[in-house]
């Protein structure tokens, strides 16, 4: 068993799951569940791919991907926060909207040459044994995802902005008392979540797979929503959630490559089994960590 290869695969494949998980943590911290994450990822994946090709600049693509993911989540925010619609139903519809729109506008980009964000091994660190390959031989967005997790953790738990965010999710009436609008905070959180999901999609298409194809996220956005519970709404723990999932994928593929005797079907269920088992073990503790307002109707969202 090549542990180094599995862990390197976990980090490489985990980035496109970590970003949307972080985004969903922010959104849910403000009290809004966004099942449109999958749609925002697809919007980000296609937009980054397309804008990268049009401008010749992959970073312009990444920024455009974030904007696209954010715009799609604006639909969710508007329907849920301003129109008071059911957030589960709207989230699913937003995902299907993202699937449909990207399939339609993505047709011209299937198989097109990509303006790629190539790997950028960090000089010096990347030649270290073991950790060099596992951590320091990836694309820039992968390094940034770890930085983003730390920064968001600090923001959520150590700043006034984070306090407002958490208040919007725990006790929106308190925000009201202080003359602040929970709705504004929630809009900001959902848009931020959509941008991060778009960023995850952008990494998937322009850095990890160098490909655009219809529905290419194959459920990664939904996995991210599930991993938020695993991460107990904590950006730092989201890193472990994302890497657990992608690590299980890398492990099962590595086992296949080594000619393992374990059934192929069982191996392919491994990533999902891993998450379910861990959730089953942690579920009670996790349930207590959920933002209060997630389970409530938005009475105060005026």
């Amino acid at each position, binding site marked *: 068993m*090549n542990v180094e*290869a599995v862990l*390197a*695969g976990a980090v*490489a*494949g985990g980035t*496109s799951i970590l970003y949307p998980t972080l985004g969903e943590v922010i959104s849910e911290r403000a009290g809004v569940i966004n099942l449109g994450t999958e749609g925002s990822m697809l919007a980000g994946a296609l937009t980054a791919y397309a804008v990268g090709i049009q401008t010749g600049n992959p970073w312009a693509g990444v920024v455009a991907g974030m904007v696209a993911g954010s715009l799609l989540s604006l*639909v969710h925010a508007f*329907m849920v926060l301003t*129109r*008071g*619609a*059911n957030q589960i*139903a*709207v989230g699913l*519809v*937003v995902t*299907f*909207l993202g*699937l*449909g*729109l990207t*399939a*339609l506008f993505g*047709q011209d980009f*299937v*198989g097109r*040459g*990509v303006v790629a964000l190539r790997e950028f091994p960090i000089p010096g660190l990347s030649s270290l044994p073991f950790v060099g390959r596992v951590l320091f031989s990836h694309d820039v967005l992968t390094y940034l995802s770890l930085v983003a997790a730390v920064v968001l953790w600090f923001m959520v738990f150590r700043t006034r902005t984070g306090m407002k965010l958490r208040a919007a999710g725990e006790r929106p009436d308190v925000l009201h008392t202080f003359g602040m609008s929970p709705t504004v905070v929630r809009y900001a959180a959902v848009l931020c979540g959509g941008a991060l999901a778009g960023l995850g999609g952008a990494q*998937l*298409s322009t850095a*990890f*797979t*160098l*490909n655009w*194809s*219809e*529905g*290419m*996220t*194959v459920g*990664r956005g939904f996995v991210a929503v599930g991993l938020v519970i695993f991460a107990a709404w904590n950006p730092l723990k989201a890193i472990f959630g994302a890497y657990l999932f*992608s690590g299980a*994928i*890398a492990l099962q*593929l*590595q086992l*296949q*490559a*080594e*000619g393992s*005797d374990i*059934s*192929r*079907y069982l191996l*392919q269920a491994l990533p999902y089994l891993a998450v379910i088992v861990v959730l089953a073990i942690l579920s009670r503790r996790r349930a207590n960590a959920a933002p209060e307002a997630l389970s409530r109707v938005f009475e105060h969202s005026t």
Partner: protein
Amino acid sequence: MTRRRRWTAALVALSLVFAASCGSDDSSDEAGGGGGTGDGDSDLTIGFLYVGPKDDFGYNQAAYEGSLAVEAAFPEATILQAENVPETAEAEAAMQDMIDRGADIIFATSFGHLEFAANMAEQNPDVVFLHQGGLVGDDVLDNLGTYFGTVYEPVYTAGVAAGMATETDKLGYVYAFPIPQTLANINAFQLGAASVNPDVETIAISTGSWCDPGTQATATQSLLDQGVDVITQHQDCTKTIIEATEAAGAMSVGYHFDASELAPEGWLTGSEWDWDDLFVQIVQTIVDGDFVGSEFNGDFRVGLQTGDNPFVQSPFGPLVDADTQALIEEIEAGFIDGGSPFAGPVLDQDGEIVWADGEQPTYDEVETMDFFVIGVIGRTD
């Protein structure tokens, strides 16, 4: 409250319409009456169903291009297209829609469309149904048939090119599911490679999806980590694997379309569909009224042995030298003369003889294949 609800309903409806219209994109395409060049049947309507988008640079696009050849050959016919038709009862609805619009002939081009096409054939005796890749057996309805090429022939010769080119004697195969067609391809690839390089082995990895680029990227890396230096695949979207292989300095064998542009250094060859002649031939037979009892009214299989294989070799890359190309031509000539990639002796992974020396499987036996040959690393279950 009611206003709010109406807004929600409107958006939900709008989104669903969007999703639906993109999800299964029906577009009819009235061919302009050229006058005189066609067969004269101005009422002829032909429908084509695809499981994916018609421009996927792969399986579906190849079938779509076949439909364009039919359109060109029968300019007065109306061609109906339905993309992204899932392998569920929705396929029946899509076919019913085509029948409602006057379809006389329907091509259902995905493996999983078979049972739905068979159901519809039973209910609509006046419409002829053709299914791509399935098997209906001997007791077939008068208005049903399946067709396919022998995909494994050019895959075998691509294996020859890979077996000559590899330096590590390890080849990699990324595939979706262990269906017989895929197993036959993987086996043919290994047998072709082993015919020129007895030490070679093929590591087969399943992604569990016809198109999941993220998993493909990780799978490719896993193969490279095992020292594999030639990677091929049976996937619907092919770009990720070829890009990753090329970036790692390894060699690529394509599938479904000529991706040599993506791998200028490492492209060896590949295999791809060319349906044009067969589709036109089938439609002509139906138009002439000769379908019932014809070779197309059943399980029609064509390979080099029996005609022109619609599955052809992609152009060779710079690493395939003239000697190898000559050898491949010689092997193809052998197939035309009655040979087969699976001519015995063929051993399974346990070393048991499946087809003995001098034996050769029928097309049916190949299409129900459920094992890996010796030299393939991987499990079929």
